């Protein structure tokens, strides 16, 4: 399975730092076997399905880092591709940790998969622990509102949560802003099926006309472009008023929005 990804994949796999304990898994349940297959699948998506282009991979510092990105595309392929980029394109390779929605823990198989590939429940204590272990942590401050954007709102960032900034201040972690281009077109959402979503206890349920097509459940093979910005460092009191934290968050949000605009202008085609 890993042959198609070349020698490079295995070489990188041997160099990626994992925090395993004596029981063969890390404290969050990451299992190296599962992780290998997960990385191989996302690397395949990254190289062959979405054929992502990565810019500014050299901007990623070693040591603890918060990767803050725009969120899009109904299903979190943006997260997997940022993870793939961190593993395949960043030197030295990093294993990305992301925070997942709490309700995913109630889903069979999904909760199991997330735990084994080191994706943790989105609570501040977990984030703090990961950063203290010098991991690379991915955050989507837009949350579910960002990923469930309808097509007419594409590439317009919604409001950012403030939690990531308090976390960065508290743990003295640099923030790397990331713009992901290409995710908004993979699933074209024309609305949100709120009543059914509520019934199924899901945060949202997009209405996707493409599901009517053959293989419509697959995301459209848009070409992803992932821009890593320069690390931003902030200082201040993590327990400051919302207004003061908001100013700092706004700086990050503006940086990402600017990178998104630049990326969209540079893009010639959605699919190539």
């Amino acid at each position: 399975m890993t042959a198609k990804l070349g020698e490079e994949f295995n070489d990188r796999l041997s160099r990626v730092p994992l925090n395993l304990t004596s029981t063969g898994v890390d404290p969050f349940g990451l299992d190296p076997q599962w992780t290998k297959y997960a990385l191989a699948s996302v690397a395949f998506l990254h190289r062959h399905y979405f054929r992502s282009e990565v810019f500014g991979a050299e901007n990623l510092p070693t040591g603890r880092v918060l990767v803050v990105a725009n969120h899009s595309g109904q299903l979190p392929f943006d997260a997997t591709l940022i993870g793939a980029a961190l593993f395949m394109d960043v030197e030295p390779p990093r294993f990305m940790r992301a925070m997942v929605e709490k309700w995913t823990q109630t889903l069979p198989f999904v909760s199991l998969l997330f735990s084994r590939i080191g994706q943790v429940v989105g609570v501040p204590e977990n984030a703090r622990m990961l950063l203290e272990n010098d991991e690379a942590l991915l955050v989507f401050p837009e949350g579910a509102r960002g990923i469930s954007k309808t097509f007419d709102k594409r590439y317009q960032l919604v409001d950012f949560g403030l939690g990531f900034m308090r976390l960065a201040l508290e743990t003295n972690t640099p923030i790397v802003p990331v713009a992901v281009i290409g995710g908004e077109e993979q699933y074209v959402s024309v609305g949100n099926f709120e009543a059914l979503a509520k019934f199924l206890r899901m945060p949202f349920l997009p209405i996707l006309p493409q599901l009517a097509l053959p293989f419509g459940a697959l995301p459209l093979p848009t070409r992803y472009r992932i821009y890593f910005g320069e690390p931003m460092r902030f200082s201040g009191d993590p327990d400051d008023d919302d207004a003061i934290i908001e100013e700092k968050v706004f700086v990050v949000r503006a940086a990402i929005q600017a990178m998104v605009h630049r990326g969209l202008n540079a893009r010639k085609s959605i699919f190539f």
Partner: protein
Amino acid sequence: MDRGEGTILVTGACGRLGKHLVRTLHRRRRVIAVDRRPFPDKPKDVVHECVDIRRKKLKDVFRAEPIEAVMHLGVMHDPRASQDEHHAWNVAGFQKLFDYVEQFRVPKLVVLSSANVYGPQPHNAQFLDESAPLLASARFSEIRDLIEVDMLTQGFFWKHPQTETVILRPVHILGTVHNAASNFLRLPTIPTLMGFDPMVQVVHESDVVRALEQTLTPGKRGIYNLAGPEPLPLSHIVKLLGRPNIAVPYMLSKAVLKRLWNLRLTTFPAPELDHIRFVCMVDDKRARDELGYMPAMSIEETVRSVDFGRW
């Protein structure tokens, strides 16, 4: 007599963990074992007071000689016993014990609570520290008297600061003990929930006994979580035991377990399924730093210990 050498009163001493503790302590200290159950193979120098902790007779035990420490292990958790019985024993009985500790100025009170008071929840942090809220009764109301015991003890901290009070919250204790976790792992075929494999922490009973002993050091007070060796997925524990395993979908197992429970064919109430579904793990940094606690048993020894019967 100096602090650190006086008499220790252990409640619930005839449970398996209680016996283990008494056997460890009696070599160095005078031990009074309080339990209404018999203690047939007790060490000769241990005094067994066969009383119900709710009875007045317990007061005579305190009156007879100065007690240096009370170790309360006698928390009842029998899923078959009624709520009234639980409450009378765990809360009312415990309050009596409190009164005596206060009245006879016992310098130390150690209460064995459990990490289960935090409760397995989908939104739990991977490692809960001692300040995490005790939410177990949200999904499993029968456990609320155990939470009440923990809370009552917390109230004791500030009401009677002259008594050094310690609450110990160990994760699932494995060994010869008869608790839900050990009984579950003793099943000939271990059922798990399809698509769920939470990380779990287990601790060997001898490590708990060692930690209990460490809390007796004069000056130690506070709440301590207690975890054993490094955590691991439930499936790895099943693999270590080498027993067959059957994965059942959650909805089905919940329905079946409810039915079996009503027919009195199982000792596991359906809400306990959450323990093999969600994470409920603790951070025991405080116990390691302040008590000097360090689990001595490896994960293999800890897990396999459920197979050993009596001593």
